[in-house]
């Protein structure tokens, strides 16, 4: 297994290099010189020139030991992510935003997975019944309502009118307090698509011979569902779950914005809006690394849950 993991980790090197090359080309060649943006609205030409010098934009793009690409590559490898347009170190922004983002997305993610996998097992078991139809209808309806509507409704009624939750972030509040409502909204809105997906997976399994055999042997529904069906349905579930984990780091733009959660989702969107390439570049780079790592973890999990899959 160790050899397999090492081999897979070695594969990540060209992928990360490719990401670095791509982001460099996109930001420096397609996006163009951003010195004027850094300098601001009323900056003089000389200020812009000074920024070009300071940030190294006056150096060749490639084909030199001191080229912009070599610097870009070196900075990425050493995690020297530079300073954002507002001159704050990018790493400080990310460090500050990562915990609030994860406090929002991790419980939301687990909430969605647990509720949707659990419910999908139940509705697959009672397939064709009124409960199954009702669940599908509610899921489709939930998916059709814009995410923003859930936020506005939740904030107005649950937080303002009924006072069950705080309306907005405040440093006086415990993390669990200010993320509770957005997590709840996130779970409710995320259920539709996930429940439908897992229901399909479970239905495929429920039609298998081993399920009939298990019931024929006299096993109860709980044991059949949770012991046998769930285990056999794990491959698509793991794929969906593990590959979603790196994106938890990116937070949730709308929830963060409406509830004032100082996370990375809004940081990223704001950086795109203001063309803060330093932040975008850092976030892309970190996301790429996480994505590659979790891909490896997915493959390892496959082998752990399914003995037919070998590390060879």
């Amino acid at each position, binding site marked *: 297994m160790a050899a397999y993991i090492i081999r897979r980790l070695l594969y990540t090197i060209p992928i990360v290099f490719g990401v670095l090359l791509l982001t460099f080309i996109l930001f420096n060649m397609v996006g163009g010189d*951003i010195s*004027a*943006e*850094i*300098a*601001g*609205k*009323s*900056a*003089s*030409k*000389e*200020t812009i020139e*000074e*920024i070009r010098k*300071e940030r190294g934009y006056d150096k060749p793009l490639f084909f030199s030991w001191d080229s912009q690409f070599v610097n870009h590559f070196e900075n990425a490898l050493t995690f020297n992510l530079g*300073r954002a347009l*507002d*001159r*704050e170190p990018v790493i400080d*922004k990310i460090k500050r*935003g990562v915990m609030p983002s994860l406090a929002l997305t991790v*419980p939301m993610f*687990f*909430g969605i997975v*647990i509720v949707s996998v659990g419910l999908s097992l139940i509705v697959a078991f009672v397939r064709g019944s009124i409960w199954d139809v009702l669940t599908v209808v509610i899921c489709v309806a939930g998916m059709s309502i814009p995410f923003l509507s859930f936020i*506005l409704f939740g*904030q*107005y009624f649950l*937080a*303002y*009118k009924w*006072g*069950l*939750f*705080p*309306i*907005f*972030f*405040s*440093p*006086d*509040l*415990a*993390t*669990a*307090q200010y993320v*509770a409502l957005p*997590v709840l909204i996130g779970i409710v809105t995320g259920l539709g698509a996930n429940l439908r997906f897992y229901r399909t997976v479970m239905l495929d399994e429920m039609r298998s011979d081993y399920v009939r055999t298990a019931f024929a042997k006299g096993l109860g529904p709980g044991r059949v569902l949770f012991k046998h069906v769930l285990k056999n349905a*794990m491959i698509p579930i793991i794929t969906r779950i593990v590959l979603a984990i790196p994106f938890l780091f990116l937070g949730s733009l709308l929830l963060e*914005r*409406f*509830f*004032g959660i*100082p996370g990375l989702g809004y*940081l990223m969107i*704001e950086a795109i*809006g*203001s*063309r803060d390439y330093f932040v975008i570049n850092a976030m892309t780079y970190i996301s790429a690394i996480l994505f590659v790592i979790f891909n490896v973890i997915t493959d390892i999990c496959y082998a752990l849950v399914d003995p037919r899959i070998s590390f060879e």
Partner: protein
Amino acid sequence: MRIAIRSIVLLTTIFILLAVIGCDGSGSENDPDEMILRQALFNKIKSLDPVSMRDVYSATVSGQIFETLYQYHFLKRPYELIPLLAEEMPQISEDMLVYTIKIKKGVLFQDDKCFPLGKARELTSGDFVYGLKRVADIKNLSENWSVFDNKIVGLDEFREYTKTCKKAEDVDYSRPIAGLQMPDDYTLVIRLKRPWPQLIGTALADMVTSPVAKEAVDYYGEDIISHPVGTGPYMLKKWHRGSYIELVRNPNFRGELYPSEGEPGDAEAGYLDDAGKIMPFADKVVWTIIEEYQPAWLLFLQGKLDTSVIPKDNFDEAITGIGELTPELKQRNIHLKIFSDPSTFWLGFNMQDAVLGENKPLRLAISRAIDRKRFIDLFFNGRHPIADGFIPPLMASYNPKIKEKGYSRYDPNDARKLVEEAEEIYGGKLPKLRIAMPGTDTFARQFGQFLTRNLNDVGIDVEIDYMDWPTYQEKLNTSSAQMFASGIVASIPDAEDFMGIFYSKNKAPGSNKFNYYNAEFDKLYEEIATMFDSPERRELYQKMELVVLEDCPAAFLNHRIAYVLHHDWVKNYKPHVFQYGLSKYRRIDTAKRAEYKGR
């Protein structure tokens, strides 16, 4: 597998328990008797270093931490400059080139670890000189340099010198500057290259010249943007960047007396109740950064914010058809303040554009095709006045008869005739025109649709280019936008800001994004630039406005009227549009706040 599932269930249970235990909907409250000002900011703070400050939001916070030599009187109108860190108004030489400013003695910076033993020192004239040198130092990349460019003797040379330094640390701040002298610790002498009557308002009452302790700059280096060390009434306690800022009283603040004089009606309005009392009143000033209107509005109604603007979608909930507060808000003892904002918004024309620049009938046709009243009704709930010219009504130089000239009239029939005339000049059917629209949000798109329909109605084909702010700026700076939606808010109670944007030497990438040129206007601009405020100067402003309106480099759309709400526990809430350091005047009636029922 089983372990994994159990771990997930355990983690989720812990989280839900935490959420439920902690969820009382209000959070831990501060001491109810503590006087806390709670406000919202609709954008993030970029920097708390005066040298790089250019946006309103950063200045709003910094204005409580830093002080300027002069400030605008809190109550008197028209706005009047008075000393703040200065002992008195400056002595100005006869040739208007030398300003001698006496500085108050005994003013201390806030205590900070950048000082020896953490104990602050006294403010001296050297701190102002240091501040101006920082603006000039190219290594600081100050956006504010344009304010001082070619104005103070020797400062441009200092800037040239900083360009020769390899690193920021190499710049020698002890180099003397002929135009910035310190005869003693409490006297500052500024020598100008040519008369600059706006020096006090534009520069010495502006945050950019606020003194920053050199020790702080040396100690914090580039991180000075988040470690403000000033002389003002408050100092930074917490800054959760992007979400929350908390200031507390600066114990070293010398105290300032609340004004005892105002304008007629101030006493009746209660603005003089605190006359002669020592400021600041509030113990803490807190801003929550809320970029969406709904949560800000709900927090205001809940009593967790002291003040609020009225979001467009909540206007009917707040204001009746006759422009008064609705009974529901009156019942909550909420007060409404309506005041003019020194702003003008327009659809600008690039005068260097081959189609528009040489075709005045076309520009006039566009201007007459826009139904400004409908625009204001649709987008601003009918609140704002039409801009008949570009000098806002708040300015002393506003021409009350400008409406009679009819430059902003809506006349689609006339516009159609002008289009025919324009086509003759162009030599055929006009090509499709393009408008650069900053933003891709709903407002921008609806505004774009409105303009398209108005112009299509008179036979002008138009396409809107929606773009993000940096792209928009780039288009304007490179003169590649044919038409553009834009506006300006004045920084001083003088129309000079509005004149500068039409001066030909300020063409793009400068502030004249119209690339407008008129020799007569330029001549008048150079004349007023060295004149102090006077009836003659105001007359020249009005003359300049007419020159521009006649050439039509823009279709002026509207000025802005601000509607602000505040709870009745907020005292001394007199609107002021030219100053940022206003928190010191505000007082909170904590008993009234405690009585408020928010839902």
